[in-house]
């Protein structure tokens, strides 16, 4: 908005028109956001203050009771400690590995690189019952293709391998298997967006592939890495599928029924019928994810328009 016009009239009009058109572009998205994001979210907030003792919710009658119920539950500290441990392992490791893999792939784009990218991506399609089945077999030394490694490390069977102290690492391994491919594709796409002219110029100045990756490509894909951090962190706080699958009683693994906070939320809702406490628990997880996002966004100026 640096160009100066002689009279102010048309300029104001132009500005108004641009603002108006911005809202028109946003409108459909806004409607969907209200209907399927903000609306239900606000309602969840209301539920967290509602009393469910009489079957029908009594809004606002519970005060902070639901929150107190959730925080005072004997499993609360346990699940929070578990998830903290899981975050410490999974977030830095997940992001670093994805970025390293994308950078390595992008050093020599070609058929081999794209074939490998496909191999990395496909596990993203393995979810739910298929992932469950696969994880059990992969962690059973007698049947797993990785069995020789597991046995060399001294783990004879599934039960020996799946010990509570190793769960953060095991969930990281399972989660990375099915989740990393999408992020590798995104980071690789981001690298594709790096201008070839800049890279050519660097090459002429004697910059080799490693230096290009470290000093040019890596800083340029920073916004995508921030985006990945925000989503991975918040998503991992809400870890559910892996511990839920491992914790079901029919596998004889010694995984507690409620290992993660999200499982506790489900337990409140579906075992105890306490939707208020479940909502309180869910909102707490949202708050943790949002806190991390807020910190990173303010720290990096992620929302500023590049001029």
């Amino acid at each position, binding site marked *: 908005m640096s160009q100066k016009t002689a009279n102010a009239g048309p300029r104001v009009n132009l500005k108004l028109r641009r603002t108006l058109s911005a809202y028109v*572009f946003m409108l459909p998205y806004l409607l969907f956001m209200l209907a399927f994001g903000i609306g239900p979210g606000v309602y969840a907030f209301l539920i967290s203050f509602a009393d469910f003792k009489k079957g029908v919710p009594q809004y606002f009658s519970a005060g902070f009771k639901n929150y107190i119920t959730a925080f005072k539950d004997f499993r609360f500290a346990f699940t929070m400690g578990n998830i903290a441990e899981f975050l410490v392992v999974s977030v830095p490791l997940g992001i670093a590995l994805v970025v390293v893999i994308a950078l390595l792939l992008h050093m020599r784009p070609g058929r081999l690189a794209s074939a490998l990218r496909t191999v990395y991506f496909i596990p993203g399609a393995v*979810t739910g019952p298929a992932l469950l089945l696969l994880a059990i077999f992969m962690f059973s030394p007698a049947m797993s293709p990785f069995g020789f490694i597991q046995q060399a490390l001294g783990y004879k069977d599934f039960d020996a391998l799946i010990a509570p102290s190793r769960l953060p690492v095991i969930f990281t391994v399972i989660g990375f298997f099915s989740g990393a491919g999408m992020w590798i594709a995104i980071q690789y796409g981001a690298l594709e967006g790096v201008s070839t002219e800049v890279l050519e110029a660097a090459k002429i100045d004697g910059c080799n592939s490693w230096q290009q990756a470290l000093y040019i490509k890596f800083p340029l894909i920073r916004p995508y890495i921030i985006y990945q951090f925000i989503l991975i962190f918040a998503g991992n706080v809400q870890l559910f599928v892996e511990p839920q699958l491992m914790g079901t009683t029919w596998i004889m693994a010694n995984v507690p029924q409620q290992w993660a906070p999200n499982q506790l939320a489900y337990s409140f809702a579906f075992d105890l019928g306490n939707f208020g406490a479940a909502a309180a628990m869910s909102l707490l997880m949202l708050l943790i994810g949002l806190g991390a996002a807020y910190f990173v966004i303010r720290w990096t100026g992620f929302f500023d328009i590049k001029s």
Partner: protein
Amino acid sequence: MSERNLLLETAAAAMPRWKQFVRNLFRDLGPVGFFVRWAVLLVFALYFGLPLLWLLLAPSKDQFAIISLNPLAFGSWETVVKAWQNVNAYVHGEIWLWFGNSILYVAVSLAIGMAISIPAGYILAVARFRGRNLLLWLTLICMLLPQSAMVLPLFLELNIFHLVNTPWAVILPACFFPFGVYLAYVYYGSSLPTDLLDAARVDGCSEWALFRHIALPLAKPLLGLLAFISFNNNWNNFFGPYVMLNNDKLFNLPVGLQTMIAATSAIRPGFNTTPGMLKFQQADAAMAGLIMILPVVIVFLLSQRYVIGGAFTGSVKG
């Protein structure tokens, strides 16, 4: 090419062929770098690939072969055929009905979701207007909302409009794609120069034409990627349909397969099958899993061209 490169090429021409080959192989990675790169990439190829290979072979092995044979050995075609027949026998091939439902839900929510998200992400990246920051935060909050918090409100909301247990209960919430809005926002923010838009405006381009003729063509790699992510998310969408649908004729594949496997003894040793229900084995479950995964692989291979295509060669200085 620069003078330096020319010099290098002349020097290279004087070398024996094998040396040239090796040079060409390593280029500027260096021999150590070359091997480190391949070692890392191959280790991860095994980590991601071996379980997939195992899954691909699993339908060929019955309960005994799966333990006695080498993990990566092929069992027998007979077992594969039997697994195929067992999967197809479940309620007279209901799996193909779910397959069709999945395609319908995915296609509709992908089309609507993309049409809504791309313009929104574009505007958030290039325009300044009141409420922009608020919208960015709200989008972020929506993305981070735990599903456990959303299930009940969404169900009640759709129930008011009598949409529960209809395809719309799955499709409409899936059209809301904040992830896509954000990725589009990041993409346009880092690769669409605002100067370019200003120049076009001076030339009398309307806001719609700017989007249609500059922003949209520029986003080709993004569109491919986003379409694929939307496809993958909705194809695997389990929880939404699980809560919203109770008519098995409307199920999508994940929910259908879940009920199919839960109704049998495939992964529950000692759990007796309902009388009259077929007896499901691991091989059958693996076959069902493969039927679900295969479309994703095919679509990925087809869309790969659009995702990397090379159509995008940075219009920005960086």
